[in-house]
């Protein structure tokens, strides 16, 4: 199968002017300007198959958004080859732009003063969507996101979450085959995040769209992505299944123990992470989990015991921390 997105040895470097603080340095920089090269993305390669939802993870400044911007044709790469749906994004052909969408959680494209229903009409004209197809898609999306009572209100009168839902509808009315989602749930409450995740999943399943998603909310990634690509300082650290990421980077398990006597000291069994009344959370080396569990059950009176993988946030955090330490 031909991949929908194929990235080979992609680099994007910026030349940034640099000077020391103070008046003297400011005057000198007028005549002798110094530049520093920032490697926002450095030699990354990956490919994404049709219909995949891939999480693109990394801390702030890792190069996630830069990569999305290159893929969507906004930025010209410094080197490397990028191909999406058989198109070279930097050429920004209209045929290409008609098949993709970039949704940024902190950007709006709908008219602030008008009800979304009017802005959707403009989207129809921009993408040349046949009227019947447009009306059906629009109404489907409005039903899926439960927006019927809101589409006739000016955008400025909507809450952040309601606005984001409208933005997503506006961005997907032309039924793009590829979605680039940059923090689509940023700043939203848990319920709204869940609603948007469900919609993205539904869109992916219904239309077979390929999705590349960046998010700092691991709940988004866990709910939507089987596969993740982790980048840091412009380099790829990991590319594979989310479950493998946990296996590869987490050598611990989390044990939740509820005891009738909350005073018992459990430090001999593992690292005590939290203690909330009778409930204690322990971090235990993965290899010793069975032994520690057996010991706990034989040594103590236990009301409840759970064994869980380390939360994904902690795994990702440990990936970044370990790379910082090895630098």
């Amino acid at each position, binding site marked *: 199968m031909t991949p929908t997105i194929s990235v080979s040895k992609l680099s994007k470097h*910026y030349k940034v002017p640099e000077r020391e603080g103070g008046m003297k340095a400011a005057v000198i920089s007028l005549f002798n300007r110094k530049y520093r090269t920032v490697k926002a993305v450095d030699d990354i390669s990956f490919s994404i198959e049709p219909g995949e939802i891939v999480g693109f993870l990394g801390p702030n400044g890792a190069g996630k958004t830069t990569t999305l911007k290159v893929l969507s044709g*906004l930025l010209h790469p410094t080197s490397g080859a990028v191909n999406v749906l058989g198109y070279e994004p930097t050429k*920004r052909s209209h045929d290409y732009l008609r098949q993709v969408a*970039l949704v940024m959680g902190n*950007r709006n*494209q709908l*008219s602030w003063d*008008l009800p979304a229903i009017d802005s959707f*009409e403009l989207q129809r*004209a921009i993408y040349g969507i046949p009227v019947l197809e447009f009306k059906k898609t629009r109404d489907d999306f409005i039903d899926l996101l439960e927006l019927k009572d809101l589409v006739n209100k000016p955008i400025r009168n909507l809450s952040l979450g309601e606005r984001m839902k409208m933005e997503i509808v506006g961005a997907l009315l032309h039924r793009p085959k590829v979605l680039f989602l940059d923090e689509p749930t940023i700043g939203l409450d848990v319920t709204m995040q869940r609603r948007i995740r469900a919609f993205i999943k539904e869109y992916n399943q219904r239309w077979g769209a390929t999705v590349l998603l960046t998010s700092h909310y691991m709940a988004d990634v866990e709910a939507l992505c089987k596969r993740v690509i982790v980048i840091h300082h412009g380099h790829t650290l990991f590319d594979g299944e989310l479950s493998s990421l946990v296996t590869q980077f987490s050598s611990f398990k989390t044990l939740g123990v509820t005891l009738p006597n909350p005073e018992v000291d459990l430090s001999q069994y593992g690292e005590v992470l939290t203690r909330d009344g009778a409930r204690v959370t322990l971090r235990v080396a993965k290899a010793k989990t069975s032994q520690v569990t057996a010991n706990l059950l034989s040594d103590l009176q236990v009301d409840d015991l759970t064994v869980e993988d380390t939360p994904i946030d902690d795994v990702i955090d440990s990936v970044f921390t370990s790379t910082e330490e090895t630098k």
Partner: protein
Amino acid sequence: MRRYIDFYLASMKIAILGQIQYSVANYFYMIGMITEPVIYLVVWTTIAKQQGGMAGGYTAGAFAAYYIIWTLVRNMNIVFTPYGWEWRIREGQLSMELMRPIHPIHGDVAYFAGWKTVVIFLWLPLAAILSWIFKPDFDIRWMEVIVFFLAIWGAYLIRTILLSLLGMITFWTTRVSAIFELYFGLELILSGRLVPMTIMPPWVQNLSNYLPFKWTFFFPIEALVGNMTDIQLWSGFGMQVLWIASGTLFLNLIWKSAIKQYSAVGG
């Protein structure tokens, strides 16, 4: 082509709906804009009266006609400014526009064209009040009305192209207000905005023939209130078409280079 017409109509509708929401604010904005021509008008009418009823070939009534039509032409000349370009690049708004399968400048032209249709309707009562106060001399032929109507849209397109070119400097550097101010200074003198071009020294008039400015201000006004022959009217409009065609060509060339510089800094 059909898709573009559909897009223009939809954008203009959005602009009209948006402007209707703020019709009172728009009216006050237009009233504020009248201050500038009224000052020019009072000054030149006084000079004309002091010089025996005429200055630079214009009577007080001719000045009144010039500056009343000036108010409409000035409003037609309001386009997306270089400061707007600076804002949309810095704030990342351009990124969203670039993701659409239509050039952002089409969006600007269509949106402001929608706004202009509202402006024309709002201008009519203002023009009536100014005419009642300043008693302009209007001697208008049908051919002048037709060319004037075309010329105000020609002026709108020329100025859109010029200010877009100026705004696109922000692809290379984001602090260009000094260049903008220089441009606006030149335009003030060489367009007929300050005074009718025929009052300017001959060398300024000669220079203005080789520049686009006078086709955005002086020509549309003179087409309606001056005494041009049909040939002069249509050759003036031809000059506008020439500036639009060459400007569009140049804009496309610069755009190709500018877009490679785009760093999508704001988002």
